[in-house]
């Protein structure tokens, strides 16, 4: 951990507890207000992901909503060339599941402050970012790269939300093709497995640890469990021994008492609320 200093001299990086370095961001050079980014090298024990190499990835907290991935990429390129930027709602391991889908079918991204993983091409860039003085802000919108705001941005988003029908049809078709192919492959795999379970010519069955044809459902599990409980209950004798009988009576009286207390409380409560005062 970097030792945190009590007083930060200007032109020095500001390090806060937790090992984060503070970078300030402002929208354009005239802005008065600033947002703070908190950066730190990406260090996770369990993850061994190829696209977040430990030595070259910078973990960034508190990325304001007006910073898109492109903007962030350009903004961080002042510390060295950036390979990729990934913005997410919550920190966590990256999951690359399923087939690639078109942006029209992805669920709408949440607005708000995000966390980001910036992957540089050189590991030296991380040090450069971390030593960036906190009182020299990064600027989002400059002469060179304009960031659209307000109505312009909304019009742009609105325009982007359109897609030509034919293109849409193409996307659907290609996805469904892929889906059918995957389905078929799966089926074939299952078939193969099923075949393997069959006896061969000599009467041998090959036993493997392969996955079952269809996973057990939780509901089915529950059902069997309940069946067993019911079975057990049926065997039990109720009110057979004297002590059992006495216990039941006791329980009944306790139940009545509880109910009586409840009702009493209900009336007391109403009275306390002056529910009986007509005017």
């Amino acid at each position, binding site marked *: 951990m970097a030792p945190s200093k009590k007083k930060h001299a200007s032109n020095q990086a500001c390090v806060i507890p937790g090992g984060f370095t503070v970078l300030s961001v402002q929208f354009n050079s005239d802005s008065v207000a600033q947002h703070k980014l908190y950066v730190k090298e990406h260090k996770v024990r369990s993850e061994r992901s190829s696209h977040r190499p430990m030595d070259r990835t910078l973990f960034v907290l508190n990325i*304001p*909503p007006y910073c898109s991935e492109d903007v962030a990429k350009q903004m961080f390129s002042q510390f060295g060339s950036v390979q990729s930027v990934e913005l997410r709602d919550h920190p966590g391991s990256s999951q690359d599941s399923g*087939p690639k*889908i078109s942006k*029209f*079918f992805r669920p709408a991204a*949440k*607005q*708000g*402050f995000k966390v980001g993983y910036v992957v540089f091409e050189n590991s030296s860039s991380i040090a450069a970012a971390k030593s960036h003085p906190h009182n020299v802000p990064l600027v989002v919108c400059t002469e060179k790269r304009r960031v659209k705001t307000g*109505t*312009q941005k*909304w*019009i742009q988003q*609105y*325009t982007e*939300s*359109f*897609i*030509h*029908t034919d293109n*849409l049809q193409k*996307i*659907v078709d290609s996805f*469904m093709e892929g*889906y059918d192919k995957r*389905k078929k492959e799966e089926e074939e795999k299952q078939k193969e497995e099923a075949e393997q379970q069959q006896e061969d010519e000599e009467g041998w069955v090959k036993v493997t640890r392969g996955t*079952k044809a*269809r*996973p*057990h*459902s*939780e*509901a089915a*599990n529950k059902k069997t469990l309940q069946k067993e409980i019911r079975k057990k209950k049926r065997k039990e004798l109720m009110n057979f021994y004297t002590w059992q009988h006495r216990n039941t009576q*006791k329980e009944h*009286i*306790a139940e*009545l*008492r*509880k*109910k*009586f*207390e*409840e*009702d009493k*409380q*209900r*009336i007391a*409560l*109403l*009275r*306390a*609320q*002056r*529910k*009986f*005062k*007509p*005017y």
Partner: protein
Amino acid sequence: MKNKQTVADDAAEMIPSESHEEQENEAPSKAKRSKPEDAGGEESVYHPVKLSRSDLYKPPSAEELNQLKEAESLFHCSLLKMQMEELLKEVALSERKKQQIDSFIQTVTKLIQTVPESPEVEVSDLSWLSSEVKVPFLLVPKATKGKFHMVPPASVDLIGSYPLGTCTKPRIRVDLAVTIPADVLHPKDVVNQRYPRKRALYLAGLAQYLTSSSEIGTMRYSCLHGNRLRPVLLLTPPGKDSSSFTVNVHACPPPGFFKPSRFHPQKNNIRTEWYTGLQNSQSEGTEPPTPHYNSSVLGDLLPRPHLQFLSAVGSQCSAFADGVALLKVWLRQRELDQGTGCFNGFLASMLLAYLLNSRRISNSMTAYQLLRNSLNFLASTDLTVNGISLAKDPDSSAPSMEEFHNVFQVVFVDPSGHLNMCADMTACTYKQLQHEASVSMQFWDNPTVDGFHSLLMTPKPMIRTSDHVFQLCELVKLQSSCKKLDLLSELMDHSGNYVHTALPFILALLQQGLGQRISLLTHSLSPDPEWSVESEAPKHKAQPPLCFGLLLKPELAASVLERGPPADSPKSAEFRQLWGSRSELRRFQDGAITEAVLWDGKSMCQKRLVPRQIITHLLQLHADIPESAIRYVGALLDDVIKTGSEVPSTGEEESLLVVQSYDDLSRKLWRLEGLPLSITAVQGAHPALRYTQVFPPVPLKMDYSFFDKEKTSRSLVPKEGKPCPAYITPITVICHMEGSGKWPHDRLAIRHIRTAFHIRMGELLKKHHNYTCKPCPTHLDVWKDGLVFRIQVAYHREPQVLRESVNAEGLLVVRDNEEAQALEMATNHKPILTSTLHGLQQEHPCFGAVCRLAKRWLGAQLFSEDITEDTADLLVASLFLQPAPFTSPGSPQVGFLRFLHLLASFDWRNNPLIVNLNNQLAVSDYTEIKNDFMASRESLPVMFIATPKEMKQSMWTKKGPTVQMLQRVVMVAAESLKLLEHQLMDSNQTQDVRVVMRPPLDAYDVLIQLNPKQVPLLVQAVDPPHCHLQQGRHRRQCSPDWRGPACRGLQPCDPLLGRAQRSFWGPGPLLL
């Protein structure tokens, strides 16, 4: 052992705290707490009871066992009874108060008995009175014969409710009868107001003497039930108790001083010659009878016998006093217990006495049963036709029932057989009483209604009860009405009170004119005037305006045609006489030629005001009351939801257009051929399709100059430099496809298949019907009749697929998640709600308008994020489905007022709001819902609404409002209601009902000003700007040849609000 001790401690703690509470309840200076504060009280939360083990399982004593058993069988059914007992404790006078009253009465009695004598003077000579005290009487005409002098009274007695034990809080009135000695009066004094004037002089003399005493607080005059012939002197104790009770001093003649037979309703006691001041050669035989004058003088003679009678009856029945108290509370909540012609506590006691005497109720009944039986009696007996009498064997001089009915509208004869106790009551007031009683009986029997609350706890002010209300502002105008209606002898009978003279005739006129349109006509009872002893008695016109309430019949009230009898029938003359020049001969489609009146009215909101046209026309024609004197409060609120420039409309017509267009689309969808799967259901899921959209979508035509053309997708997009284009509301339609094995079992694949359906459907609609369509992955937009319908294809197993997932052990688990819930909400619940509420609109024509007003208010007060459209519609639906103690709202205005009242007064913390849509819930369901609610209150939404489809979760209010926002909603609703009712009922106020639609902005820390050019819905603002912005549309009907993709659902404010909220506040209240 240790455990037991703590239990004992707990018990010990509980007892003192309870007794403390009772003390607090009885304390005289009870701090009044407003209702919303009550709801927010910290102690008012229900906590599940926790009893320790040792407490639950200790051996029971025999007594406890009995008690528990009894509770098990009785507690729930007698809950209402227990609540009433608690209520009685609230209204009963405490011992301390009684002591205070007794001691003050003693002082007053002593003082009055020492009033000094004065020399005898003429009645008209007022010089013996000091200038500080005036006579509480309107001396018209001035001349009176007779002598008067002050002497100490013959006796001073308590009369009325206090000695009877039926006096209740609040407004404690103690009646004190002061008997005028016989030598002041003369047996002939009954004639020509001589006795009433002497009575007033006697009170003035008492007042003059009492002003010098320091033991009396304030002194004011009033008159008994607004009857100017019977002034009373109001005394309050000095010091801080001055407002806690009032002593009414009545002056009475000595018992038996006048013969009761003189006051026969057919006899005359005011001579025309004296009253008009003109020499008239009429003999006494032809003088008109003066029944009202007679009964008011007779009323002075009888209070003591009445008290004796009532105490004799009351002493037999142990619950008599409690029964009267409950009846008084019931009457008071309905504003029937005060003013001229009221059904006061005295009449309530007399009614109970009648029921006891006629063995309709027995002496052993409880207060609960007394109330129930008397309401039942009132509901079933019409005293305007069949009067009742308490006289067991009236003497021969007593008038017969018919004679009473001839001169009075309502007849209830007292034990002496001479006095009609309901002499001043109008038939309308009695009908109102009957109506209230029968409504009460209806919901009393309904186990799903909180009977106690509706019966005795909910106030029913006229503005919240009647559908339409109108006021007669300038009461002086009634003087000319009396002339026009030729009511001189009646005026004389009422001693010049033209308001009460003309009232019954005006009511009869309106009743006749409105006929089938209304189910009930009510009027406010003019309050008893009160004035200080130093000022003259106020004039008759100096009372608040008379209010009339109409309860409309929804199916007939808005009809523009009044069809009369055929031209040749003898009744046609009568019809013409009633309607005057408005009546004309008309030929109808069935060939009949009849007299008819046609009222103006094109749109629904104009038609709703047909009763207003009738009332102004009739009053002008027959009673000489100009339109300017009538203040009609029936549609003042419609302004805020009004659209349409040529024909003003509150949205019914526009909604109908949308629904018709949708019906057509749905028919066409059903008939589509060439889809791979068939359609199983087409359902609307948008408020506009259930008539509840605040501003229903209007057909639009685009102005191309405001758009850029996007080439690749062939769409219109707004231009950057121009103002924001018009907002087009997409109307959501859900289209369920049939289930099939070909549907994939994968969420992404389903989504793609749905898209394929959207594309295919769009192609087919384009091909067969030539609609412009725009498919998207989530929906298909169809441009039809200038409206945009957003069709969403739904697959009924999709939510299930979304819930399924495979966990790490390879087990298929079903977990509820937000995505599945949202989908289910959009594709299942919303369409069902829409169709159900559409049905409700068919049943109650003003349902939609109430919803629109309610949502308008919620939106204007910035609550629409918290109380969603669906929630608001459900809240309004509950007003129609369970209106007790009211009847279903018959006008948007009254519905909106009740909506505000519901928001402001409902106890969300301890009660679920149950909306019984389609009447699907049984009684057992209600109990189940309530029990489930109680058991898991903490984990449920703050605002809990249960519907038949969904009894446990309250899905409509799951997301909001939060506790804080609900608290604010309650507060703002209470204030709005107060302000609005005041505005509507106060004729002096400048009319600006929009005040309740303007949110208070001073509470917010940040205000964001929007650029008016970029707000597409600016014209819908509560206070729209004057300059009209061109927003890229033509307000003409869409031309059929227009073909072009549209710009749908672009509303720049929404992203702004959403963005700000999500980025900076999190999912909390955004105060903008």
